């Protein structure tokens, strides 16, 4: 059935949350249903709720409605100026046809360990606003992703908004890259980084993360702190990237062995860190 408002969706979830699955773009849920990996007894369609589709630029954050289509975000220049990593990540999400229908909240709530938007959320420290009939609670990305296809969303809750922090530093650079069998496929490994640089060309703020390397996408704020005050030369970047790769616990499958994924993770992490730094340093 179709929910006409967030309040209506929350009321339905309150009554029967365990049996209900919310459907947004359906680009992950419907394939899972087609393969009988998901068998929800009821679907509640939130696609027609206009209040869930918006981009609000505020001084320190960008608020994005959960049901905003990925294609709409990809084309939003003002958003790209404030949160550049988001556009860079979106370019790797599926294909034109899936981005026309897929939503930002759907991708984040689906929480595929190799998906791009959850990784961007981890690196930027996005905050998920979860609505229920009892009110709203805010869950930061680090506490939100609980495992493969598992999040902190309770059965009676609906992901309503995602808040993306905007870095206030003057010179910021970000980068996203991944290796997949074909562009648009799930990443074997994905990497993302955002760096801020001071007037003297030294790193003043940094974070980076890796996807596809374990149960959830991971950010490495502790390791990124080693970059502060440096000019991010190859040696320091590689050592930080190596240390991050060591922390991963990737799986073995037909497409790539765990060892290959770890090596790839170190290479891609270093690459995004360097690219983000160079972009930041090149800013006027």
């Amino acid at each position, binding site marked *: 059935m179709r929910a006409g408002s967030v309040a209506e969706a929350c009321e339905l979830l309150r009554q029967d949350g365990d049996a209900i699955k919310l*459907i947004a773009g359906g680009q992950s849920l419907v394939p899972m249903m087609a393969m009988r990996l998901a068998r929800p007894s009821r*679907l509640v369609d939130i696609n027609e709720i206009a209040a869930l589709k918006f981009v609000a630029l505020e001084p320190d954050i960008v608020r994005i409605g959960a049901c905003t289509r990925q294609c709409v975000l990809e084309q939003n220049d003002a958003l790209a100026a404030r949160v550049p990593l988001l556009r860079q990540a979106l370019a790797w999400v599926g294909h034109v*046809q*899936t981005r026309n229908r897929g939503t930002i909240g759907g991708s984040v709530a689906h929480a595929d360990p190799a998906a791009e938007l959850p990784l961007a959320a981890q690196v930027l420290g996005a905050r998920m606003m979860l609505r229920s009939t009892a009110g709203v609670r805010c869950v930061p990305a680090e506490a939100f992703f609980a495992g493969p296809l598992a999040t902190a969303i309770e059965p009676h809750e609906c992901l309503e908004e995602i808040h993306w922090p905007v870095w206030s530093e003057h010179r910021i650079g970000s980068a996203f890259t991944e290796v997949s069998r074909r*562009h*648009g496929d799930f990443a074997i490994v994905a990497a993302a980084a955002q760096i801020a640089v001071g007037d003297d060309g030294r790193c003043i703020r940094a974070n980076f993360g890796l996807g596809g390397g374990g149960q959830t996408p991971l950010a490495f704020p502790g390791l990124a702190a080693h970059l502060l005050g440096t000019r991010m030369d190859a040696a320091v970047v590689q050592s930080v990237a190596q240390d991050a790769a060591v922390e991963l616990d990737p799986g073995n499958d037909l497409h790539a062995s765990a060892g290959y994924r770890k090596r790839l993770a170190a290479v891609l992490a270093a690459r995004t860190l360097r690219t983000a730094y160079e972009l930041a340093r090149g800013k006027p």
Partner: protein
Amino acid sequence: MSETLYPISVEVNGVERKAQVPARLSVVDWLREELRLTGTHVGCEHGICGACSIMLDGEPVRSCLMYAVQADGHRVTTVEGLAQPDGSLSVLQDSFCQLHGLQCGYCTPGMLIAAQGLLDTTPCPTDEQIREAIGGNLCRCTGYQQIVDAVKHAAARLAVKR
């Protein structure tokens, strides 16, 4: 046990179509089996191959990943709707014929919808843009080069027309 039916009203290729559908019916199955619009093909049925692409409110989407009830109140264009009002082929369709942009033809409706979606927003696409636009469509005959050529050819023909 009879399944609950839901009333829907969808504009398909410019014509208002009303129906009663079960919640579990996908858009592509509704188009093919009830409306007999068999131009749209069913391939993988889980959003990978792109053969079932249609336009929803003017944008290419996968019709196997949408339920017919969700199309209620929206506008759908299928490959049949790309042809001209008299039934003759559009410039894009004709360009696929001219440059052999198809072999077995299974992926063709999806390729045409993807290409039309591109030309609607980008009348003079680069090769890179064409490849990006059809990136979500699989051709197992692997005739991609002629498909790219056909889209380029169509863009050039349409530019002359304007």
